């Protein structure tokens, strides 16, 4: 198929960006979206132009590096996948595809389609861990039984890949699905209880300091999340925060 691409180009964080049109031809429907981008970049390199910078790494939907806003949707027009898992069979010959970076105050553009997501790092550093040193004599892994239900639910929350689609898609650029997922994982496990109150307070405080917006329960984040993280995690985070503040 032949396509027109409208892509955000921006030299660096200090320069103003703009949309630029490109044409790509003979794209196979079996290609992944990023392979289509590879074709464009090879074309640009060969014609002496600078290729489009975009984040990507594992190309199997787990590293959380890829982050494109395609035709107004985070990770494009398919559900429960990342951009690297999107295939060209979702498009048709003659389509015009608009490709933008994540847009959020807390995620400044570094170059073209690459954004700075280190705000997520700082939120995790504020409390996204259990304080346990490495040693050869931690208690046996089976010493505390954990119900299968709680373990599975913790796993569902822990499946978050930290891509930032929730922030990009939220009209308030809220990071509450991301933070809720991490808080939930630990809140559901006995190991997470000891530091629960400090964890949720510190992570939420850091989240606010980074300039992410608030949650107004529209649920767009849940729809666009490639890993199906549930809105329940936000409710749990709020509950945990309430509990912590009442202590």
């Amino acid at each position, binding site marked *: 198929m032949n396509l027109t691409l409208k892509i955000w180009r921006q030299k660096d964080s200090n320069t103003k960006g703009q949309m630029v049109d490109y044409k790509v031809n003979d794209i196979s429907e079996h290609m992944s979206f990023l392979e289509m981008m590879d074709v464009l970049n090879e074309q640009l390199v060969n014609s002496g132009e600078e290729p489009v910078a975009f984040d990507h790494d594992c190309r199997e939907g787990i*590293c959380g590096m890829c982050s494109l806003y395609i035709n107004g949707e985070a990770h494009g027009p398919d559900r429960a996948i990342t951009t690297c898992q999107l295939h060209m069979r979702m498009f048709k010959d003659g389509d015009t595809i608009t490709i933008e970076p994540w847009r959020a105050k807390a995620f400044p553009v570094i170059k073209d389609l690459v954004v700075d997501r280190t705000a997520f790092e700082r939120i995790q550093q504020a409390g996204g861990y259990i304080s346990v040193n490495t040693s050869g004599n931690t208690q046996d892994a089976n010493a505390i039984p954990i119900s299968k239900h709680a373990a599975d639910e913790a796993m569902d929350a822990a499946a978050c890949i930290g891509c930032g689609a929730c922030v990009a898609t939220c009209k308030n650029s809220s990071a509450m699905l991301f933070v809720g997922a991490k808080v939930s994982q630990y809140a559901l496990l006995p190991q997470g209880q000891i530091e629960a109150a400090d964890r949720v307070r510190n992570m939420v405080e850091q989240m606010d300091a980074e300039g992410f917006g608030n949650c107004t329960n529209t649920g767009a984040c849940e729809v666009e999340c490639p890993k199906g993280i549930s809105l329940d995690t936000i409710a749990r985070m709020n509950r945990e925060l309430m509990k912590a503040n009442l202590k």
Partner: protein
Amino acid sequence: MSVLNSKVPKGSIKDKWTTYKDKIDLVNPANKRHIDVIVVGTGLAGGSAAATLAELGYNVKAFCYQDSPRRAHSIAAQGGINAAKNYQGDGDSTYRLFYDTVKGGDYRSREANVYRLAEVSANIIDQCVAQGVPFARDYGGLLDNRSFGGVLVSRTFYAKGQTGQQLLLGAYSAMNRQIARGKIQMYNRHEMLDVVKVDGKARGIIARDLITGKIERHSAHAVVIASGGYGNVYFLSTNAMGSNATAAWKIHKKGAFFANPCYTQIHPTCIPRSGDYQSKLTLMSESLRNDGRIWVPKNMDDVIAIREGRKKPTELSEDERDYYLERRYPAFGNLVPRDVASRAAKERCDAGYGVNATGEAVYLDFAAAIERYGKEQAKIHNIQNPSKEKITELGEAIVEAKYGNLFQMYEKIVDQNPYKTPMMIYPAVHYTMGGVWVDYNLMTTIPGCYCIGEANFSDHGANRLGASALMQGLADGYFVLPYTIGDYLSDDIRTGPIPTDTKEFDDVEKEVNDRINFFMNNKGTKSVDYFHKKLGKIMWDKAGMSRNAQGLKEAMAEIKAIREEFWKDVKVPGSANEMNPELEKAGRVADFLELGELFAKDALMREESCGGHFREESAEEDGPQKGEAKRDDKNFAFVAAWEHKGEPANAVLHKEELEFKDIELKQRSYK
């Protein structure tokens, strides 16, 4: 007399590590804060090492090329992590895990290292659970296990199909705690471009800030390389796009020996390639072989009918199918080790039985498992005379619970529903057992330079068993390196900070800048990918699943020729003082173009078949093992450690003879 000293402690294999730990030198806590350690790479090995060293009190500087340490490619490991816990009471033990790993590695690993790995494996699970890693549990609330290839016990712990992700997030959370305390300085989007030696010791690195392009000097008392494997030398592999060998290759060129580069794992269950535009291959976890049966049609007529779309695989009756692994290896069946399963798939496809248009695909079928689970569930739920549909429905629910995310991933890529029609799979490059040579302390032949995880060569011999990579990465980082590095650093308590304004740093920085300037100024005509793809094709065709002397000699000559063309004609757009992914790739591919040649040289030297290295000249000629790999213990029971001498072709071979005191060398039979 070899120049290699493995430094394996004396004593019985069961006591070596314990006795050794009791006797090594320690650094007192007050002195640790005067010692700096650089860790390059933040996957399971690097992440766990950085966190643990910082907990101990060292000042750690950690580097990764991704925008977060959590994105290192360990995250993509799906199936699980082995540990000799014997929670299932099925006869597992430290010795058995040790034995399985040595045997699985086709008797080409160092016994003492493998025993230590098995010994600390149980601690890893305890540590990860304490960190909040949500491993799968059974209804009683205890940890669940599954089975992996090449073993007869269930010792694999897992977190759905995302075990690597959860373990890495555990190590990442431990890192975050230390970053918050200021004990780890984290350098995201940074790439190490060379190592700096002072008085023969590794004392720092030159790194490039991938956002600004700035070249930086970083000093330390020791440098730990944890940068993963070199599978991307094949261009197409299951590695991440950015996975590269640059850090490992740079230390090799500065004096670290590179061991067994030809030992590469070709994983049997990957999604077949679909076209020339393909940028990478996707793995389907080996855990699928617990329940999936692998087959191709028995009759060529059916193969042709399927390829032409006239027949569907589900229309073939049981006796029209060739379950070739069950036929050839009745004892292990579909759970033979990876190298054996891959070669068997290639054998069937080479014979013309491949089931897709390219002729390079076999079926992985879950119909039998769905029926079996369905009947079991019907019994559990007390459903009398369940209909076929009901059984399928119940069975699919169980398969979904076990492998749902993998099935979804397959469907998104291939656009077929694997619950209703068998998956198509084919082998792909996945893991490299070879790597930087290290002694028992995990130190390379450069004093003060360590190498851990997939980047080193030590534990998996010529073939790695499933779910052992995660185990090794975390064993090295959490439980081995933090001890052994102290023994070395105890001499550095009075050294003080290593200055970076010295001639040694000047010289290496100049080398790095010269190379970058060359790329920016060389107005060639061909893109970096053009050369990478060419290299990959040679590697796959001539140094892939089976190799012969003729092909390997050709590969060496052809790679050299491509390398020369690369340095004349490569084209890198943009500038050096900005984010420039093409420049990053150029440096990595330049290193692969050297590594590939050494790889072929190593494969040519090793005139035997062992594990992932199959030499066509060395196969069993008759008897029940006909066609299977033939090892030559008399002449090749050694580690091949290569010393760099200018060109890859001139590398000098050093042998570390392997001694097997606790395990008898046998033909590896899975029949």
